[in-house]
């Protein structure tokens, strides 16, 4: 009897681990999306430790907009361009990726920090992101795939920033090893620059096919008039959701 119970629990543990590794993307809580595809301004000064032609600016813009990354999962989910950081401010509605740290927040042991607290509730109960900003610590050595001298105990700016932009778009950390949103960075490993199935499933859960229904104003109620919470909104019980399906762990449950 005793051994049987232990075997059953061990099996349950194994099943949990297997299920967890199969699909484990995590959305920020509460689940939130941009109304329209964000246009991320990438610091046109570049990163001083990067010795490619423009300090990693083109490499970063290219990596975060690549079809190997988020735009491959949801077509047109973001755009990016090089630009000035002179108006850099948290909470101003302009998402920026800064190669320096004008607010002096990321120093010492901090490599890169993303500020993602800017969101508000829409009238239908879902949440909109209205700003997110990234800063990086120039004290550490960064590199790109196009650096002529290769990589030596450096961090690839492409991989780190594709990961951080995942947070900008509304994704949390996954427990799927090898995924871009896995919370681990290896020096001289640019794997995170290419998204994996788990990352793509997470982004699609937020943005579907990339139609951005809230862009240009909130959409009219759907035919049939469900005025309950839509897919992705935070919920506490099934009766709050249009789908009638409120799933997740207590404190971070969302309508499916």
């Amino acid at each position: 009897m005793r051994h049987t119970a232990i075997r059953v629990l061990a099996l349950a543990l194994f099943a949990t681990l297997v299920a967890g590794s199969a699909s484990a993307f995590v959305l920020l809580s509460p689940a939130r999306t941009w109304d329209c595809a964000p246009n991320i301004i990438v610091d046109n000064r570049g990163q001083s430790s990067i010795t490619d032609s423009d300090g990693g600016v083109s490499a970063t813009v290219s990596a975060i907009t690549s079809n190997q990354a988020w735009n491959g999962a949801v077509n047109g989910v973001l755009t990016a361009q090089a630009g000035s950081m002179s108006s850099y401010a948290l909470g101003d509605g302009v998402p920026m990726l800064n190669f320096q740290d004008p607010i002096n927040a990321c120093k010492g042991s901090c490599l890169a920090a993303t500020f993602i607290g800017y969101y508000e509730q829409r009238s239908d109960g879902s949440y909109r992101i209205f700003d997110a900003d990234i800063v990086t610590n120039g004290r550490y050595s960064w590199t790109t795939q196009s650096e002529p001298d290769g990589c030596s105990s450096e961090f690839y700016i492409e991989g780190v920033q594709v990961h951080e932009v995942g947070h900008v778009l509304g994704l949390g950390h996954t427990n799927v090893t090898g995924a871009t949103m896995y919370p681990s960075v290896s020096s001289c490993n640019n794997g995170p620059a290419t998204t994996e199935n788990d990352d793509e499933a997470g982004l699609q859960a937020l943005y579907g096919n990339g139609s951005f229904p809230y862009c240009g104003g909130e959409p009219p109620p759907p035919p049939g008039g469900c005025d309950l919470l839509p897919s992705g909104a935070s919920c506490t019980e099934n009766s709050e959701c249009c789908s009638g399906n409120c799933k997740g762990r207590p404190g971070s449950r969302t309508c499916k």
Partner: protein
Amino acid sequence: MKRALAVCLFALIVAAAVPASASIFVAMDRAELVAASQAVVVGQVVGARSFWNEDATAILTEAVVRVDETVAGAAPRFVTVRTFGGTVGSLRIEAHGFPTFREGQRMVLFLDGVGAIAEVVGYQQGQYRIVTRASDGIDVAVPSVDGGATLVRMDGSRAERPRAMALSALVESIRTAAGESRTLQNRQVDR
């Protein structure tokens, strides 16, 4: 039998726990934290306020901490500690992986800049919250490091997250690390 069940249930809970967001930090072990700190204190947050910085580019939070015990270094009776993030009006800035403060919280803090506005060394790595265990009344130091922080080592390997321990054990290990750090500094001066 109960023990086996408890172990399995604990493992299930751990397996289900998934971290949930954003910034990247180089891991610091206890000796590195102590060496980088002007003071390590045990104290209680007696006040906290959030405000926009002068340039209106970021929300900061300053907490006043009453120092109940100085474990290493030297600190005044009250220390003002600053961190990024907080809420002003309807706007909330979450600086993931950064220390946070709430009035009434007891904590162990590794501090730099205690002569003016102090900062926590190593971000969340330098902050432990103190919780009194209901079953035996023992104070436990719980690391603040949460899912918002990704810790890395400079060689690229993934770092171990700090673990909760009895406050007395943490204090003892800090004192040991501080003693070793002082010995090392003296040796370097002797040379």
